[in-house]
């Protein structure tokens, strides 16, 4: 089995303002495959919290649309996860 690749997968950093927005994000987690980086599971998501999660290239657009529709503040921390995975090895063999 070839290793999993993460080409063009994104990591989003969302600034939740209230419980309503937290529920929107929890709802997104029910319908999309989101990998929560912080907190480590959707049930920990609460209002007034920043949340980091990974989303596939395929699902990114609909997640982005939902965030925009609910006027949620977010930043794309990582645009291409595969690229960052490769870049983490930035020290040359001695």
């Amino acid at each position, binding site marked *: 089995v070839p290793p999993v690749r993460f080409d063009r997968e994104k990591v989003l950093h969302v600034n939740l303002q209230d419980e309503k927005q937290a529920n929107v994000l929890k709802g997104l987690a029910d319908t999309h495959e989101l990998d929560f980086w912080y907190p480590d599971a959707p049930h920990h998501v609460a209002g007034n919290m920043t949340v*980091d999660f990974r989303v596939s290239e395929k699902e990114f657009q609909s997640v982005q649309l939902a965030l925009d529709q609910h006027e949620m503040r977010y930043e794309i921390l990582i645009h291409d996860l595969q690229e960052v995975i490769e870049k983490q090895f930035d020290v040359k063999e001695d």
Partner: protein
Amino acid sequence: IPGRHTYAKYNTWDKIVAWTEKMVHKHPEMVSRIKIGTTIEDNPLYVLKIGTGDERRKAIFMDCGIHAREWISPAFCQWFVYQAAKSYGKNKIMTKLLDRMNFYVLPVFNVDGYIWTWKQNRMWRKNRSRNLNSKCIGTDLNRNFNASWNSFPDTNKPCGETYAGPAPESEKETRAVTDFIRKHRKSLEAYITIHSYSQMVLFPYGYTAKLPPDQEELTKVAKVSTDALSSRYETRYIYGSIASTIYRTSGSSLDWAYNLGIKHTFAFELRDKGRFGFLLPESQIKSTCKETMLAVKYIAKYILRHAS
């Protein structure tokens, strides 16, 4: 031949095993390797004992890599062992610490998961045990301890990233660690677990908003250790109980160790604050380890001075 181990880079499991042998060979009077168990994939779980004394002395247990994808964590444990052994007889504080207490260091807790992150899926978190009646693999080892086990939603779904397992201590890795800690309970004065990321020093409890009886002391030690940490590169850490600082969790190793009677228990969430998350570049390993070393050394000094 696994290739060359280096502290400035992330190392594969094979390299880490070869490194443990090398450390024992190079410092036979100071470092010994104890096999505390095996994993479901039959990989060994090694603890390195660092110190000059017998097992009755005060001791600190530290584990790294309970979550597979948090690579900076095992990198720190390797750094710690290297620095401790290397500076014995040269650095006054470390010499004093190693003359009077032992450190038990588990460089990689979740060995199967760690191997999986190198070979198949860099984003893997859990271990690699099979789950009954489910196609999903793995248990979150930091939900598998017997501390209010499985008392929150979503830890009972085998496909979830925080699956607590079928029972407390169901996993071979958890059992090996708890057996070892129970066996050494009398000498253990502190338990430290190293995670990434988000830059925090945490203490119990996670499963309740209630603060532990020793919270004043724990707060003080956590504060000074974060001060020590930030003195090197001004990296800002926050501190507090798990439940009040992040969120409530059940089945964590930290709560379990505290309830067992180890009164100085701390979890470190190392760099960074989210820019790289689990993918901290290798070029930041050394600085992260150097600053963390200051905090862990402070805790060790505190234990030496204040513990019973």
